[in-house]
């Protein structure tokens, strides 16, 4: 019986490719695993200004504040998006954010959000958050949970001021868009 048992265990040593999204046979993912995947996807739909594009082939994703299970974002490290390699860093001070291309702001930054956004000024940094009210307050893409699924809202105004071009596809998928949407792309 032990042998049959072991045989069955060893039988499924097939790493294989990845599951289709429609089949939820794997256990439901943890919240931040899912949000990190969204961040990875958002990057694909945002165009940084040409000056920024020439600056190097690393795309820095910075985390500011206490992000629950930041390890989920670590998974993005080394991944390639649009010819650029991702690197994930935890920041201690908002001043360091100007050298990032993407800045994820944790819920703990609520109190000083205005200050942080002011420090960024019009720098081409894609700001992302997952706290209620962040988009209204200027964060460019804010994620939230609705019926256990991740949704997001966009602040097109601040994105435009930072010379970041958010594709219409992403704008269409957003639950809410703050600020005037430019006509077509």
């Amino acid at each position, binding site marked *: 019986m032990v042998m049959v048992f072991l045989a069955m265990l060893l039988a499924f040593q*097939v790493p294989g490719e990845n599951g289709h999204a429609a089949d939820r046979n794997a256990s439901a993912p943890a919240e931040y695993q899912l949000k990190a995947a969204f961040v990875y996807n958002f990057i694909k739909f945002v165009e940084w200004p040409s000056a920024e594009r020439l600056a190097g082939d690393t795309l820095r994703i910075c985390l500011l504040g206490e992000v629950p299970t930041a390890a989920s974002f670590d998974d993005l490290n080394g991944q390639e998006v649009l010819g650029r390699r991702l690197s994930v860093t935890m920041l201690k001070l908002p001043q360091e954010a100007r050298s990032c291309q993407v800045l994820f702001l944790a819920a703990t930054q609520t109190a000083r959000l205005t200050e942080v956004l002011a420090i960024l000024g019009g720098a081409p940094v894609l700001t992302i958050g997952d706290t209620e009210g962040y988009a209204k307050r200027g964060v460019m893409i804010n994620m939230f949970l609705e019926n256990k699924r*991740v*949704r997001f809202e966009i602040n097109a105004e601040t994105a435009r001021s930072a010379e970041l071009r958010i594709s219409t596809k992403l704008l269409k998928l957003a639950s809410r868009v703050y600020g005037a949407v430019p006509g077509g792309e």
Partner: protein
Amino acid sequence: MEMKRYQQTIRRTASCLLIACATIMLMAGVLSAEETAPEGRDLKKLSIEELMEIEVQTVVSASRYRQKVSEAPASVTIITARDIQKFGYRTLADILRSVRGFYTTYDRNYQYLGVRGFGRPGDNNTRILLLVDGHRVNDAIYDSAAIGTEFVLDVDLIERVEVSRGPGSSLYGSNAFFAVVNVITRRAKDIGGIELSAEGGSQGTYKGRLSYGAAGKNGPDVLLSATGFTSAGDRLYFPAYDPGNPLADPRAGNGGYADNSDYDRFGSAYAKYEVGGLQLAGAYIERTKGIPTASYGTDFNEPGNRTTDSRGYVDLQYSSRFTGGAELTLRTYYDWYRYDGDYLYAGTVNKDRAVASWYGGDIRLTTRLLNAHHVIIGSEYEVRDRQNQYNADVSPPVVYLDDHRSSTKWAVYAQDEIAVSPIFLLYAGIRYDKTSTFGGTTNPRIAAVIKPIENGTLKLLYGKAFRAPTVYELYYAAPPQVLNNPTLQPEQIDTYELVYEHDFGNGLRASASRYRYSIRNLITQTYEPSSGATSFRNQERAEADGTELEVQKSWSSGADSRLSYAYQKAVDPKTGELLTNAPKHLAKLNLVVPIIKERFFAGIEEQYTSPRTTVAGQKTESFAVTNLTLFGRGPQRRVEASFSIYNVFNKKYADPVSGDLAPLDSIQQDGRTFRVKLTYVF
């Protein structure tokens, strides 16, 4: 010889499981090194539209509002519809048997659940609270949680089962003693059309189901379903009833065989109507089971011995969400239950009957206050207008019991989830229940959920829970042998738990927990030698100490595994002896192996139970049961088929039973059985 053999079995199965555990951990290491995308499933490869379809894992039962499993003030296990398909679960008992630390006992009439080493034969599943979408399933006569074929919902209609371990009376009141099991139903749009399902299996078992589910765009979601089930059962042999056996019971006959007495059949229906924040749901089941065990001193090999349980309810709920995140839920319901037992004594039919109906309403408000507080307050009121019990012989007509009762109960509760710091949640809850039968009881719960390190969660819990005396325990009487006891008080349990859960990433999660509980005023049927009468009394106590370990690993290929081990020592503090039907060790392994990705899977289950003491002082042998299900689905999920083999190695094992089945002390369970199932969606 028996001693050595079962020691060998323990050693073999234990080492088997240890090897399994080691292999899984090893493979976790091997596979994570090979994969470029180490998460259980590589979410990054999905498009945004696909990501938007995925649900985050949450639980509603632990705090009566939706929250992350890691933040819940309880150790929670979730079994999903996918698990039910892939492991071929036929009843809620099959589902719960796979849960860490849970075990079942079947006396060929009802399935009984044991939790944390407590599962006294003769008890009626009164110490777990069973809910369907938050609606209480425990009836108003026996407070019994139906988990066998008498459970009101077809398992195919289950979206997921949330098992919140530990005391839940601070939110739910009576019967949330060891656990709260909340069965969440599937959504109408998940059925998306007409679903026809047919099953056939060993022992002449057949089940047919027709379901319809449609979701309107802004309009109502409607779900309708009806199921019919029949099983001829097994031809069972009992040495105690074999006339060839010199020590046979005087009722022995038919060579010790009970023919045509193990039948099981039911008809059930379910309907759910949802529009906006309103939900109207109704369920009904009528189930009849033959009693092949000549229980209660009835005639042996008599197919006329049977019990019929009918249960139904209608539940109307309205939820409204306000800006700021507050949510108000109002609910009203009407329930009914009927039990009919036919018992034959030397050809005379004795009818045992119970009828109950009850209705009530509750209101619940959850809201966030002052940034750091997530508060829930609620109130419930229930009228039990009929709680009648009856017992009489048909011919010559003698009425032994004709008892009519009614009662009311109300409760008020509150819980605060305080975010003391980003890594520390404190829960404090309390509930007051007042019942017209015994008075009032207050039950608090306090829990700390701390994240000491990244990906690790520590939970410390203390809770008090109670179980109200049932109308059966209070008033069932057939003098002079059976007397009632209207002065019964509720049972009480104090539980302390320490749980640590860790997410290693790469789809690997593990948890370890320790608990201790102490029960007093345990309601027990006691026998008074002087008068020769039995009655229920708040007489005993029980204490237990337990340790549980669980490891889960999921792979991007779709493979999934769960391995658990539970050690529990439940004793009578007066004597220090292990309780009856209290296994010290339970180990379980569940494995899903994709054979053809997305299309064809194998679900393997291995469950080990250590020896259990019976009512007569014997010990049942330890055993390990293996179940295998092959599950396949066609393109676009129009067709699904499965083939299951239960107890693959035809292991002979027995469950201890109550004294009501004397001279039987333990009942042998089924050997190898099969089931074929086909589902078609139009």
